[in-house]
């Protein structure tokens, strides 16, 4: 069973994503800020990260940069989520086959499709 780390400061969105992903057969880890996310990456070694971009006390960019510094986790697929315009995200985040961007509010059907494509079926 693949593990997905959900990094989201909005408690409702975090709870919804956890429930939704569990219903789709994934194990989930949760983090409400950048520091907790880095801790979860180190300890939980997730297979994929859903990463909110704008959070108080450290943005998703902080988490992405930290992720790159972990040798064994640097290639972990990430889906960056934000209500900010994609153009603004792309100024700071280099998207790639393993780093994708999804605008908020999230299209949950599309989200599970992307996760499945990045991980393979759970």
């Amino acid at each position, binding site marked *: 069973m693949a593990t997905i780390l959900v990094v989201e*400061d*909005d408690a*409702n*969105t975090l*709870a*919804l994503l956890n*429930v*939704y992903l569990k219903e789709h057969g994934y194990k989930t880890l949760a983090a409400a800020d950048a520091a907790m996310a880095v801790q979860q990456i180190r300890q939980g070694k997730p297979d994929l990260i859903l990463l*909110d971009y*704008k*959070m*108080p006390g450290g943005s998703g960019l902080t988490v992405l940069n930290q992720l790159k510094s972990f040798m064994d986790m640097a290639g972990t697929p990430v889906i960056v989520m*934000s*209500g*900010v*315009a994609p153009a603004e995200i792309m100024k700071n985040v280099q998207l790639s086959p393993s780093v994708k961007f999804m605008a*908020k*509010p999230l299209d*949950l059907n599309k989200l599970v499709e992307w996760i499945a494509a990045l991980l393979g079926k759970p």
Partner: protein
Amino acid sequence: MNLLPLLRLDFPRAEMLLDAGMLTLALVPILYGALLRPMAVRISALTQAAMEREKLVGELRGALAQVKLLSGFIPICSSCKKIRDDKGYWETVEKYVTQHSDARFSHGLCPDCGKKVYGELYEREFPQGS
């Protein structure tokens, strides 16, 4: 060698002058203690207070320069809620407020939009709204 006897012989007024001089010298510590020292202490305290006031004014000026205030009428689209800036461009509320204040946004969903966007899942998880 004591020169006073010579001074007395050659310069009759010298003794008087010396006495006056000695008296003046004797008064210096008294004058210093009674007048000059308190004045010096007072001037030092005033200078210190003035320096602290200048520093405080500088800090307040710096803080004021960083404060951005939103005030007056803000033209906002009644449909999409974009705001027209002073150059005539229509910006999202997030961008406008971020540019004109120190506030930052974190995106969530209000209960009405939560139900609209996530439907049954939202209503099941948050039956009371949020």
